[in-house]
């Protein structure tokens, strides 16, 4: 409680029409901490991250980054805030009209207005951090496998040396081995650069591995929060059911019979 949290959410709410997605989220993330939000598909995990970044505007509530309420920041200064962020999107969201290196250097080119040659060198350096060689730089994103696209996405997210990185389902759609490679990369990248990380996933293996702290989103609220090691003995029936992947339990899936 001595330092200002890197990210602080207070009573963040968001509805789409009559559908309430976030019903009052409270969350503190300390500097350098890696927090993973678990929860079923369609429970609003992505909405939570996107409202922090400002892609989606929350209906109400306080979202503070370094103690500054970013919901009150005027649009013209929003870029200043977004500089602190990097994001790995679920499907990679690489720009398919640009080669890999331009994807990675995109943010750097926009922000620092450096020459293309210099930007390319920076991009190749960043690609090396995620274990990709320089030959990948010239390829188009559509020529890459899913795992490589994720890695390029990760390289793009960290290329601007962000203070906070968001990971949206970093391991979804990958084979278990590639998923673990991505987990290792996330750990090495985040820990090495002292980055604060907020991830969302429903892959428990990944969550246990990359998280310092795990919290669970259910029906628009964070219903449990604890150190990653205690997730298996949470004593919370909802978390218990999710962690064990049981169909029977307090969480009722809407399955038509």
């Amino acid at each position, binding site marked *: 409680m001595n330092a200002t949290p890197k990210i602080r959410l207070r009573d963040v709410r968001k509805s789409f029409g009559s559908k309430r997605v976030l019903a009052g989220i409270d969350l503190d993330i300390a500097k350098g901490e890696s927090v993973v939000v678990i929860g079923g598909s369609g429970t609003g995990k992505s909405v939570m991250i*996107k409202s922090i*970044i*400002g*892609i989606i505007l929350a209906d109400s509530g306080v979202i503070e980054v370094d103690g500054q309420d970013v919901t009150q920041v005027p649009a013209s200064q929003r*870029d200043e805030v*977004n*500089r602190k*962020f*990097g*994001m790995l*999107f*679920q*499907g990679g*969201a*690489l*720009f*398919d009209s640009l080669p890999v290196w331009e994807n990675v250097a*995109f*943010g750097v080119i*926009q*922000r620092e207005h450096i020459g293309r040659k210099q930007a390319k060198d920076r991009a190749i350096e960043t690609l090396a951090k995620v274990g990709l060689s320089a030959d990948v730089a010239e390829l188009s994103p559509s020529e890459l496998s899913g795992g490589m696209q994720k890695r390029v996405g990760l390289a*793009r997210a960290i290329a*601007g040396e962000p203070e906070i990185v968001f990971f949206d389902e970093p391991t979804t759609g990958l084979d278990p081995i590639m998923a673990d490679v991505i987990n290792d990369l996330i750990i090495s990248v985040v820990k090495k650069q002292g980055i604060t990380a907020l991830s969302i996933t429903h892959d428990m293996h990944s969550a246990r591995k990359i998280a310092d702290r795990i919290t669970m989103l259910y029906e628009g609220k964070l219903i449990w929060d604890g150190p990653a090691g205690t997730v298996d003995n949470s004593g919370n029936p909802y978390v218990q059911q999710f962690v064990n992947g049981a169909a029977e339990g307090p969480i009722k899936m809407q399955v038509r019979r």
Partner: protein
Amino acid sequence: MNFLALIGSVVLAFLGHLGRLTIFTATALSHCVRPPLYPRHIGRQMIDIGYYSLPVVGLTAIFSGMVLALQSYTGFARFAAGSETAVANVVIISLTRELGPVLAGLMVAGRIGASMAAEIGTMRVTEQIDALTTLSTNPFKYLVVPRLIAGLLMLPALVLVADIIGVFGGFVVSVYKLGFNPAAYITNSYDMLEPLDVISGLVKAAVFGFLIALMGCYAGYHSKGGAQGVGAATTNAVVSSSILILTFNYIITELFFGT
């Protein structure tokens, strides 16, 4: 009661669209006049819209000019002999005032409006537009503004070319099929033409180019729901820009020539 509810929901949906489109247009325009612009992107869009539409627009123009000469000749023959002057006049005035901008506009709407909606729509559903925001890049500046500027500038250029090719089409049919005197045809065309005929056509073209790009970007930007959503966005872009082209064609004609 259900019938009233239906009317209400249709009206509300229409007003919602209108509001979103207005905000979209205002935002896009405000970004047009604020740096940074992306000259490389504007250039690429100009090549896409201008250069690569030349074959389509050229073919449309030459056949329109040809058929116009043929039709007006057979039509005028019912009333009077000596329709040589009238054919040349009809061809050049209808092309520069009406057919050039409208046909070029409709062809470009099908070609460019659709591809803009599909490209931006795909970027929307694959989160590439969100990714732009996280990389300190305004999607309006990066995606919309270059297309609007390129559309606004390139369509008049296309229409100018279409006017010339169309008149050439009329000339070919008149001279080689109908046996007109070539020198007299050119004199007749040129004498009748007033600057305003061409200028009004080019103004129309600029407006149409802007509308095509605007509707393409708008439909793409607001598309949702995967492949089907992008398909719907493409259809919407082409249909709405075509209708707007025809509507604005009347309005601009009224402004220029209505008394």
